[in-house]
């Protein structure tokens, strides 16, 4: 190993500053959410209390926080499941070129780069013209999929580009049907990556704002509710809510990562029996 050069320490310092820049503000509001009952939006701390967290549970202090949380959670799960299933199907299909695959590929890329407000406006207009009522579970759900699907699909494309096809050939040689090959060989191999797709699906939906804005209807999702609060709530209750949702996001990310680690460990434990029959 080479000795650490001066540029290493400079870059390491830069990286540290970047991490502080990323996390510093969030940690600050985390601390400030424990502000005393008469404390304000900035330091100094005016005592330490859970006052603002309790405030969140009182209906009149803020909007319908818990209702919007439940909706966002349900919507996140819906978007997650559909994203995982459709991404796997899409990933399998795109392993070979088919007529129209290039057009579809660019449609997927377009889905990623078209400004969110256009999707929101367009879907809102369609529902308006068709005289349908916008609702988070219909129009909101569809609009969010246009944001999560490209991420899921791009991950799956990357996964299948690196997929070793000899496993499938081996399965086929042993007489597995195409469905059995997918079910017992392909899916288990890509399972950890599916967790990644699920994580993207859930969190991107849970935090999605612009695409849901005109498509959620009269029942807000959590980000919409929080945004409404930013304009009329000027107490640390906003920070308390911010802290809670961030902690929730971290818990979700942690859970997904844990599942990946467990899957990996289980595989290394029970995966290979190579050589065990030799002795």
């Amino acid at each position, binding site marked *: *190993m080479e000795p650490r050069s001066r*540029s*290493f320490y400079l870059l*390491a310092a830069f*990286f540290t500053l*970047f*991490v502080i*820049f*990323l996390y*510093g*503000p*969030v940690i*600050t*509001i985390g601390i400030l959410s424990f502000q005393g009952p008469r404390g304000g*939006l*900035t*330091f100094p701390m005016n005592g330490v209390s859970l006052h603002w967290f309790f405030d969140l549970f009182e209906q009149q202090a803020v909007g319908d926080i818990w209702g919007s949380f439940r909706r966002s959670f349900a919507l996140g799960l819906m978007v997650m499941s*559909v994203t995982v299933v*459709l991404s796997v*199907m*899409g990933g399998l*299909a*795109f392993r070979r070129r*088919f007529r*129209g695959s290039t057009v*579809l590929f660019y*449609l997927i890329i377009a*889905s990623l*780069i*078209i*400004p969110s*407000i*256009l*999707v929101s*406006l*367009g879907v809102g*207009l369609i529902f308006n*013209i068709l005289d349908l009522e916008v609702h988070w579970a219909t129009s909101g759900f*569809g*609009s969010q*999929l*246009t944001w999560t699907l490209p991420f899921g*699909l*791009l991950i799956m*494309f*990357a996964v299948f*580009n690196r997929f070793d096809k000899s496993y499938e050939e081996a399965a086929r040689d042993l007489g597995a049907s195409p469905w059995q090959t997918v079910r017992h060989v392909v899916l288990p191999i890509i399972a950890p990556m599916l967790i990644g797709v699920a*994580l993207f699906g859930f*969190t991107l939906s849970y*935090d999605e704002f*612009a695409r849901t804005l005109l498509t959620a209807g009269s029942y807000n999702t959590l980000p919409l509710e*929080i*945004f409404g609060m930013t304009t009329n709530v000027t107490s640390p209750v*906003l*920070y308390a809510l*911010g802290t809670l*949702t*961030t902690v929730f996001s*971290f818990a979700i990310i942690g859970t997904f*990562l844990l599942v990946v680690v467990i899957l990996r460990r289980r595989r290394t434990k029970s995966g290979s029996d190579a050589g065990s029959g030799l002795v």
Partner: protein
Amino acid sequence: MTKTKTEPSKRAERISWLLVTPLTCVLGFFLLLPILTIVTVSFWNYNEWSFFPDFVLDNYAFHLTSAVTWATYLKTLKFMVLTWIFCAGIGFTVAYFLAFHVQSLPAQVALFMVCTIPFWTSNIIRMISWIPFLGRNGIANSSLIHLGIIDEPLEWLLYSDFAVVLAFVHLYALFMVVPIFNTMMRIDKSLIEAARDAGASGFQILTNVIIPLAKPGIMIGSIFVVTLVMGDFITVRHMSGGQSASVGRIISNEISLLQYPAAAASSVVLLCTVLLMIGVMMRFVDIRKEL
């Protein structure tokens, strides 16, 4: 003979189609159709109460001849360029550090995760979290006063163009780090050793080997940053305290005034602008190859 040979590939093609049908339906109904609807409605007419089918060019005429539009585009471009410069600089440096200076793979993965986790948390909360830093009595002002650098709090920290660009960089730097790191990890390390053996200095290796090879990643990151900033309305509104305009905000204002055809025309112009920029950038990178 030929018949039996084409049969399986035809079957495979049919299976592929079946597999992408749900995907195509979703993107068709929630992406393609909305865009077509916007284009259609941009030619419609409206009054105070409703909008109705027509064929008028007034929406475009009004949008494109308004001095406000041009000033707003200029301002949005300014935000975009500044954000891009900072994101590219930070993204490249961080990715370079992770890819070439952190030597063990587990450490690389762990530090990479540290960088990506904020991406999975709420953008709005991350915007709000700047308030205690930048406010009139915020941490930045009070520490600067404490250090004796300034006598009075700086007014331009929060609710200003500065705050907008800062928030953009905070939100979108990750979109640069990830693709650049991804391409850098695929650079064959022996190329760098070869350059060093041939007598290249560290700086020459950076400019002649690493930057050219990392170009696709830089391009993909740039595409993300450009589209996210160009279409934004929420960060600009929130961080400028409603004082700065952006193209996205023009559209969202027209929507809130229920002037849907006007909003649609503005959207079409924005869409063309963004697609033009992306089209230029796509010439430098083959996305399918980069996956």
